[in-house]
């Protein structure tokens, strides 16, 4: 498989992330599938940030720790990442200084000095570097220029000029020729962007969020695209305000989603329970990061699974989906919003920093997502907000509907929504609400709820963003991979099918305790080994391969 990896490193504020995305777009336009990973500490200026961009002939869902090119915006980058270089690789270094890196060609170009000399914006340096890279990899300059034009809003001319300048220098030190493939370029999206678009396609009207890494970019993205997506974004005083506003807006008839990380979600738990009682549909995006508490805010984890599954006092149905790539994020976000509205239950999109902020080639078919009809009250006869039906779903109406008095409540209640303390009514209403699970399951049985990759007697079970690295490692080792997309209601039927013929089951996650393995146990499925990490970093296929060999 033809593939290339590029690392860009520098300080926070150097525009590392954007440069990485530009690299991804360049390869995208060359017909490659791309994946980009950002690693950055929790600070605004300084520190060390890097982006790892991988481009390949086939779809890739993870970065490669080894790289062909390092764009080092400072010396620290070379020092920290030289180990990633393979033979015949290239280091593009900002400086005059001669630095030696074994086995690699080093192109030291005083880019900042050049930029300063011209009094250009410091960030134009990145385009300069990308010009050098394009030249050295014999990528047509026009492609880079196109990317500059489509991605940058400011200082476009200066950037184009520096792109050219760099290109000329790079050309003289060509190390290889990146061939153009015969694919049309495709959208490159982060998990958060895919969730935003999937929800928008399913009729999202309000997105309400309080900034929190790694969910802030979901808020920012939707705020920036309000008019293109017919979505209104709101940033309230805190997460309790977020959740309660969302419930209010949904009560008034607007499809509403909120997003946060574990700590923000913790503050929404009482409100979540409210949606369990008043049956108002709200979608919660929970992007995991290392915890407890503030933890390691800009890194990744999968340690909120059981929290999310069990959050809220009392018993009520909920939907929990777990996308592992941008296509799944798009589909499942749409599905979560639709399920929430069709069954009047809360739905949670459980993602993590690694999926939320990494960018990758999207291949989804947007026509598969559209607003599905909820059960609406027909204005004939009396309206009972909590009519006890066979499916447990009561036809909805919204305030402003003549003839319908819409009473919703946090108390246990009768069909009209009036408070009750009668044991028979309580029993009936608990059963009404819980009955929905059966019908959600029926609908899910018609959906893809568990993904299976490859085959064999040894299978890996994993979830969320970790599936990227797992699938790639498993392919190499000839192992089967099983990835549940739904965690609640748990697709036991599909798991059973997926597990047929499996003799050995290995669990791979990014947490300490093996959360998925624990969940599986509740459903009678036992894993034979667990491969876990909990240092804030996602698995890479290479690391996994090694670990898997040990246990297989």
């Amino acid at each position, binding site marked *: 498989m033809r593939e290339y990896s590029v690392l860009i490193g520098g300080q926070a504020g150097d525009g590392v992330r954007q440069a990485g995305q530009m690299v991804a777009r360049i390869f995208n336009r060359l017909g490659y599938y791309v994946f980009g990973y950002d690693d950055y500490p929790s600070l605004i200026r300084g520190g060390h940030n890097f982006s790892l961009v991988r481009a390949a002939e086939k779809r890739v869902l993870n970065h490669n720790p080894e790289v062909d090119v390092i764009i080092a915006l400072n010396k620290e980058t070379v020092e920290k990442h030289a180990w990633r270089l393979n033979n015949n690789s290239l280091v593009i270094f900002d400086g005059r200084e001669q630095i030696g890196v074994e086995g690699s060609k080093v192109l030291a170009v005083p880019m900042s000095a050049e930029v300063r000399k011209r009094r250009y914006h410091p960030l134009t340096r990145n385009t300069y570097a990308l010009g050098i890279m394009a030249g050295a990899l014999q990528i047509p300059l026009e492609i880079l220029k196109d990317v500059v034009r489509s991605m940058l809003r400011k200082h476009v001319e200066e950037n184009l000029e520096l792109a050219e300048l760099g290109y000329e220098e790079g050309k003289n030190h060509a190390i290889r020729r990146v061939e153009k493939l015969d694919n049309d370029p495709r959208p490159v999206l982060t998990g958060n962007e895919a969730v935003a678009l999937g929800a*928008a396609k399913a009729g999202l009207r309000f997105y309400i969020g309080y900034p929190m890494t790694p969910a802030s970019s979901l808020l920012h993205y939707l705020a920036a695209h309000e008019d293109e997506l017919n979505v209104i974004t709101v940033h309230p005083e805190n997460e309790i305000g977020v959740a309660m506003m969302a419930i209010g807006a949904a009560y008034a008839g*607007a499809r509403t989603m909120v997003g946060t990380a574990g700590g923000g979600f913790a503050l929404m738990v009482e409100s979540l329970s409210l949606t369990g009682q008043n049956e108002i549909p709200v979608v919660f995006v929970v992007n995991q990061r290392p915890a407890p508490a503030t933890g390691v805010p800009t890194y990744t984890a999968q340690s909120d699974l059981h929290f999310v599954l069990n959050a809220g006092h009392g018993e009520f149905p909920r939907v929990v989906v777990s996308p592992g790539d941008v296509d799944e994020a798009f589909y499942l976000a749409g599905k979560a919003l639709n399920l929430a509205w069709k069954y009047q239950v809360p739905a949670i999109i459980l993602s993590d920093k690694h999926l939320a902020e990494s960018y990758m080639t999207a291949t989804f078919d947007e026509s598969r997502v559209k607003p599905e009809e909820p059960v609406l009250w027909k204005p004939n006869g009396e309206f009972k907000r909590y009519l006890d039906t066979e499916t447990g779903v009561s036809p909805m109406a919204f305030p402003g509907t003549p003839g319908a008095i819409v009473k919703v409540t946090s108390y246990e209640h009768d069909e009209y929504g009036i*408070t009750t303390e009668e044991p028979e009514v309580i029993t009936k209403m608990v059963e009404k609400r819980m009955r929905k699970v059966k019908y959600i399951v029926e609908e899910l049985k018609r959906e893809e709820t568990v993904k299976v990759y490859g085959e064999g007697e040894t299978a890996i079970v994993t979830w969320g963003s970790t599936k990227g690295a797992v699938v790639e490692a498993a392919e190499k080792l000839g192992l089967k991979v099983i990835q549940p997309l739904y965690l609640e209601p748990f697709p036991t039927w599909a798991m059973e099918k997926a597990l047929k013929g499996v003799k050995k089951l290995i669990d791979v996650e990014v947490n300490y305790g093996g959360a998925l393995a624990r969940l599986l146990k509740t459903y009678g499925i036992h894993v034979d080994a667990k491969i876990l990490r909990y240092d804030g970093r996602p698995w890479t296929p290479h690391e996994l391969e090694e670990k898997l060999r040990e246990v297989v």
Partner: protein
Amino acid sequence: MTVVSLETYAENTWCPGCGDFGILAAAKAAIQELVREGTPLENIVILSGIGCHGKIVDYINVNSFYSLHGRVLPAATGIKMANPELTVIGFAGDGDAYGEGVEHFVFSAKRNTDIVLVVHNNMVYGLTTGQYTPTSPKGYQGKSTPKGSPEEPMNPIALALASGATFVARGYAANKKHLIWLIKEAVKHRGFALVDVLQPCVTFYNTFPYFSKHVYDLQEEGHDTSDFMAAMEKAREWNHRLEGRVPIGIFYKVEKPTFEEELLKGRRPRQMPYIDTVSHVLKQHI
């Protein structure tokens, strides 16, 4: 002229004589008048927190949202922003609005969302049996403070003013006509409107005798409701001690753009079409 019936079949379980009856009667009358004056009944939504006051939503046959303790205001804001055509009136307790969820109080005032907040200010947690609330006087002995509350009471009128509220008023549960007027004025006001209502809790803190003697009408005595500093002075005239005269009426009233106007900028969320495609956005990602 027909009057819309707002009765429900819910049994009223307030203590006989509770100040909440006065608020219920005033609220119903205000709603009836609003409907008579042209507001479609289906466009009225009331909310409540958790506490004795909260039961009011069970007693008025109109759209309602029985919220969580302290969470009337963000829910009301969500309703209003999703459908600005609705008339949104929240009923909250003093424990509810000034304690548990006071952050939403500060922010609703700051944002100037066009909603009404009627606070059943009985200076106790009624439903949980009479503990001190943010507005109980210092020294108040409830079951959580048998040695007396260690805190000075909050001044919600001053707090609303400092937070940016554009309509700040106080009513008294026993002055029904005045209270109806206040609620209607609050509804007509474009922006966040606080109606703090002195609501004696006959069981845990019977302030009827005191208030009935000591309230006086700001408007009757003359007060410039457009003057912030005058409003602040009046707010500070009395603060929840059973001492001195107690001003009721409108303290402050000014016009400012509302939150939903500024947020929506003419968009009508309920009328906006669903998008057909995201391809125009996907193009930006290539």
